[in-house]
């Protein structure tokens, strides 16, 4: 009997591995296809033949065309500036706000919870209308700084909530011991809490960077000049433009996802726990 039970268990876990592999294949295929297309010579792109694997003709032609005939480097630099700015700003703001809600929160907590839900309900395509008018009047259209502060405002409600849930998991006794030793409130946050918050901050940083890097709506509306576009707006401008070959478009796709994938690989193990802490309690 024990043999048959073990046999069934082994077959169940074989099914588990196979189904997981199939889902992983579906998850990875578009990324794979992006890469495969990017290294294909343009002469082979417009062929009705199914070719799932690269052959000996793999070339960097797409990347060379992308960087020599388009301001792709500028777009990448713009995305980097917007993302760095929004990530740093939103993380600092939401560490403060999350800590405040976790330790000093009364009514503020409910307000913040409501704000999170509200900000999820508000269509960006509505808010961008008055934002466009306001930034036009301020002379901030085509200004990367405008994108930094708008992205920050839309990231902060979520990361604040994530970090609040994370700080809730740190026992208060640790701070009380610091108070007894005479440390001030800010000093306690800076020297006691922050060093313990690496995983929570890593998750918040990843979330913020993924959102800011992916922003298309605000960039498309507030950045009309090609010289200040981020990479998302560059990709969108290629779609449906028959002058740009698919290997160049996919090459831009590849360079646009590499930084996010590296960040994701570095922080993935913190994401699952931190994202959930916020969602389960939210």
């Amino acid at each position, binding site marked *: 009997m024990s043999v048959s039970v073990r046999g069934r268990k082994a077959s169940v876990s074989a099914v588990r591995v196979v189904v997981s592999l199939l889902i992983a294949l579906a*998850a990875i295929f578009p*990324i794979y296809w992006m890469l495969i297309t990017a290294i294909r010579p343009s002469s082979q792109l417009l062929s009705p033949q199914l070719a799932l694997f690269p052959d000996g003709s793999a070339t960097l032609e797409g990347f060379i065309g992308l960087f020599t005939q388009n301001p792709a480097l500028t777009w990448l630099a713009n995305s980097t500036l917007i993302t760095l700015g929004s990530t740093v700003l939103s993380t600092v703001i*939401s560490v403060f706000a999350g800590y405040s809600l976790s330790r000093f929160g009364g009514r503020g907590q409910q307000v913040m919870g409501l704000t999170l839900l509200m900000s999820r309900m508000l269509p960006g395509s509505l808010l961008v*209308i008055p934002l466009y*008018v306001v930034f036009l009047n301020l002379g901030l259209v085509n200004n990367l700084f405008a994108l930094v502060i708008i992205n920050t405002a839309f990231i902060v409600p979520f990361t604040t909530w994530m970090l609040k849930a994370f700080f809730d998991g740190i026992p208060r006794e640790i701070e009380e011991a610091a108070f007894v030793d005479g440390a001030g409130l800010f000093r306690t946050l800076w020297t006691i809490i922050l060093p313990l918050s690496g995983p929570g901050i890593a998750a918040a940083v990843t979330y913020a960077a993924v959102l800011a890097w992916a922003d298309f*709506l605000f960039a498309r509306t507030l950045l009309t000049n090609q010289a200040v576009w981020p990479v998302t707006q560059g990709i*969108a401008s290629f779609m449906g433009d028959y002058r740009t070959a698919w290997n160049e478009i996919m090459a831009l796709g590849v360079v646009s996802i590499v930084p996010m994938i590296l960040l994701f690989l570095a922080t993935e193990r913190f994401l699952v726990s931190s994202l959930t802490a916020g969602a389960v309690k939210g």
Partner: protein
Amino acid sequence: MTLGRRRTIFGYALLAPAIVFVGVLIAYPLVLSLQLSVTPGRFASLRSSEGGFSFEHYVTVLGSPETWASLLRTGIYVAGTVIPAFAIGLAVALLLREAFPGRRWLRTAILLPWAVPGVAASAVFLWMFDASFGVVNQILFHLGLISTPIAWYSSADTAMFGVIVPTAWKLFPFFAMILLAALQTIPQDLYEAARVDGAGRYQQFAHVTWPGVRGAAFTALIIASLGVYREFDFIFPLTRGGPNNATTTMAIAIYQEAFQFSNLGFAAALGIVSIAIAAVFVLIAGRDLRKV
């Protein structure tokens, strides 16, 4: 100053920057949108201070059949994206909860689409679903499932499917992550107790697993639905809402009315109506959440 008072001030001081940002860049534009939506005239503008007050844009929005058609399309887009993404996310979470060789790599691979920008995902799906040279038609043709190529994004019958697929592809890892972590909070003893009572795999799922993840699952469903409801990054670059409005959801309609037709008052009223609909959805879903 007492410590208690200092603590209160410190608490509010830490919260202040977040409130300023959200207030100035989310709440204030919302107020301006409301103002815009009740400013009469075809070319209502935030700069004309004389303005006036009228519900005419709301009358036009609510009386237009296109509003209700776009609401229906939004419902199809949200349900068509969220339901399969949730089902796959749940399957992934259940498959990956137990250790097996290579699980860590598989998990990373499966969660990867979450990090891909929506526009980049749209670009590769536009290419994969290309009518003449796309790999999807080539595979279908190769398998003998089609004899003539399908024009996925330029046919009104298939365009909605074409925008749902990349949206769901990017969304399902979100569910997988939430559910994976929720599964980790279920004590193993519960499963052992269920097995002792003779519960099979399905009974274990129904009586132990599902009750353990239900709360997280519903919260994630609401958050994800609201996210897809206002999604812009897939439909706009892929189809601009076309062909023939077949993929014009409310979020896309608001943008087109404002930035393509300069119909700001109408766009603002449509936006406020779409927020009201989302609020009703959250209230109903919140009530059902407590019941389940």
